[in-house]
């Protein structure tokens, strides 16, 4: 398959332009009479004597890409019989790679956050589909119009499929500049490896430097098992402390100390004011502080690293970010308390889950500028105090809880927008008992249930049968007249 030319037809795909050719295969643009989207064809060289990892990489990419969906991966179209005409046909995604952008690094923290949110969102979508990329790097991220698109799944791992690469090589598989410590040790089953790689990318975006340089030997790669990187702020004080906190949390040597999910990382990038600063934020190249101790602890543990890793199911399917939407307009009433009781149950069953406490301040006049209006400001502060007071019995550490008072006329819309924007995994909210007015206007919980993109638990206070019976009997009288 080395002597290919423009115009050659492979199982219906006509080659139109050679994009790249290397030792392992060639990449073409192509057309197909039944496909309107732009097409990219990957054609491996599967000669006898070819390095076995080339073959396995193509097998893995074909197996995984055809099972992936969504905006953050190229669409899979077809693949040829690997024993006969090997190729993978996928969508050609227009856009620069992040590698091209990286030449202009360092970037402002605003730009770093935007890229981080885009890639983190793509990563969360991938992990939800039970796939770990394991070779996340700027060259494998396309900045497309629809967001970040991850490419090249030749090293990826699918939780439910055989890992064809696991036993193929004693050499760590990945890109030396971005590979996680556990991957260096041969563990290919931890989604936190992608979080580590994203941390390396954020580091590079923010500082213009690679955190571990470009090691060329296994020993060079293993340095990251024992040595924390130079903190980003030691390169540049333009990196805010909260961003250093985020980057170093991604790059924790112990995968269990990184963000539990990509969604949580995106949440922090979207809400810098909510990032809880720890020793990481103040880490300095000359004062490693807690790092040394941590590194020693981890170094002693690495021999039995693999068996203690949580599975993707526990890491990814759990309610990593729980949103409690509480109505505090009439103070902390029995319904709000019932919502809190249920939130406590949800958090109990989801170790590591974070809680976003959310309440809507119904703005009465559109255009009221609360930041300058003392009355509006104090309403906001009072509501925030009430929200924190509501959450206090949950006894959550600052690192697991955040508070959001949002002014809006339409509470359901505010809840939905917040949940979608922050990639919330589970919404818990209350529903008031039915009333004439509520039936007339439509209930907030009903609208949220109808339109939310994630699981929702709606809490209603239990009532007795007689009450419900009475309501049914008298209902006709409650219908507003003259409406």
């Amino acid at each position: 398959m080395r002597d290919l030319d423009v115009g050659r037809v492979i199982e219906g795909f006509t080659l139109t332009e050679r994009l790249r050719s290397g030792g392992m295969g060639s990449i073409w643009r192509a057309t197909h009479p039944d496909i309107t989207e732009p097409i990219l064809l990957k054609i491996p060289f599967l000669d006898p004597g070819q390095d076995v990892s080339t073959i396995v990489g193509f097998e893995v990419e074909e197996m995984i890409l055809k099972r992936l969906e969504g905006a953050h991966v190229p669409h899979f179209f077809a693949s040829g019989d690997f024993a006969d005409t090997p190729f993978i046909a996928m969508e050609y995604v227009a856009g620069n790679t992040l590698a091209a952008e990286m030449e202009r690094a360092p970037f402002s923290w605003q730009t770093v956050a935007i890229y981080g949110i885009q890639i983190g969102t793509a990563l969360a979508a991938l992990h939800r589909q039970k796939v770990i990329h394991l070779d996340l790097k700027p060259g494998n991220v396309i900045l497309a119009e629809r967001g970040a698109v991850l490419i090249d799944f030749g090293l990826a791992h699918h939780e439910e499929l055989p890992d064809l690469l696991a036993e193929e090589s004693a050499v760590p598989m990945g890109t030396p500049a971005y590979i996680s410590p556990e991957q260096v040790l041969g563990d290919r089953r931890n989604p936190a490896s992608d979080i580590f790689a994203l941390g390396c990318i954020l580091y590079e975006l923010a500082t213009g430097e690679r955190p571990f340089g470009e090691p060329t030997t296994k020993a060079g790669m293993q340095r990251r098992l024992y040595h924390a990187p130079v903190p980003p702020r030691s390169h540049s004080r333009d990196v805010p402390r909260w961003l250093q906190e985020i980057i170093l949390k991604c790059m924790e040597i112990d995968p269990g100390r990184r963000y539990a999910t990509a969604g949580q990382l995106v949440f922090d990038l979207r809400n810098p004011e909510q990032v809880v600063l720890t020793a990481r934020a103040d880490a300095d190249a000359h004062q490693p502080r807690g790092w040394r101790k941590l590194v020693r602890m981890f170094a002693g543990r690495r021999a039995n690293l693999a068996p203690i890793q949580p599975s993707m199911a526990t890491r990814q399917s759990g309610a990593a970010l729980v949103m409690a939407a509480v109505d505090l307009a009439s103070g902390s009433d029995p319904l709000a308390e019932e919502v809190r009781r249920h939130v406590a149950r949800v958090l109990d069953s989801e170790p590591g889950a974070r809680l976003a406490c959310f309440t809507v301040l119904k703005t009465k006049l559109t255009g009221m500028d609360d930041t300058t209006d003392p009355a509006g400001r104090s309403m906001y502060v009072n509501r925030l105090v009430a929200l924190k007071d509501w959450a206090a019995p949950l006894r959550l550490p600052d690192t697991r809880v955040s508070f959001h008072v949002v002014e809006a006329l339409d509470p359901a819309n505010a809840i939905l927008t917040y949940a979608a924007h922050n990639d919330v995994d589970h919404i818990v909210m209350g529903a008031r008992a039915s009333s004439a007015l509520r039936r007339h206007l439509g209930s907030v919980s009903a609208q949220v249930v109808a339109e939310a993109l994630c699981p929702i638990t709606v809490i209603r206070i239990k009532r007795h049968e007689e009450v419900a019976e009475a309501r049914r009997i008298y209902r006709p009288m409650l219908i507003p007249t003259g409406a």
Partner: protein
Amino acid sequence: MLAPGDGRPLLQIGLFADIHGNAEAFDACLAAAREAGVERLVFLGDIVGYGPDPAQALDRVAELAQGGAVVVQGNHDEAVAADTCAMSSTARRAIDWTREQLGPAQREFLRALPLTHAEDGRLYVHASAREPAAWTYVHDRADADKSLAATDAFVTFCGHTHVPALFHALTGRPASHFHPQPGKTVPLSKLRRHVVVLGAVGQPRDRNPRACWGLYDTAERTIAMRREPYDIEATVRKINAAGLPEWLGERLFHGR
């Protein structure tokens, strides 16, 4: 040898190993296979032994064999048919009891079963492709290597261990192991050769008490180990009523 079907490509094959006279588990798996649109049934041995309904299971398999199902012999089938037994005492008590439940025609059916059956790149055998009559377990990668070396079939389907497993190997390389998750569809790469070890219908031992059967899609080359709940209590009542060792019933609750 090609499968019957007038050259029409086969689509779904239902694979059943180690039924072991468990009628409730067998019925549940058969019903699920019919629902899944299975067009061909393959029985990978050990229809009888351990369980309380050997005659019923055997008659059902014999009837399906009349209709074109493939059946190969397992070590329990052989032992019941042949009056010889080199097994653990629990297994032997069950074998002796089973033999008493079967008539001459039923035992003749078991005796006449082939050890292997090959069709269209697929090999069916109860234990290992290497010396099928030696009843060697395919437990680990080394066992799989030996089985793969003994056949050039693209995929070997077997049972015998009661623990579902997939082994796959590139030419000239040692096999890798994969533990398939219940119900999840796994592709078999055409660049590799495979040993698919089915879990047991009638006596699962992978700590999942649900009955196991396999769904193989010949067009997509995918395998799924399907798991079906069944009325374990009913089976256990029959085991105890028959006076079979109590442990044979107890283990069904735990999948051990």
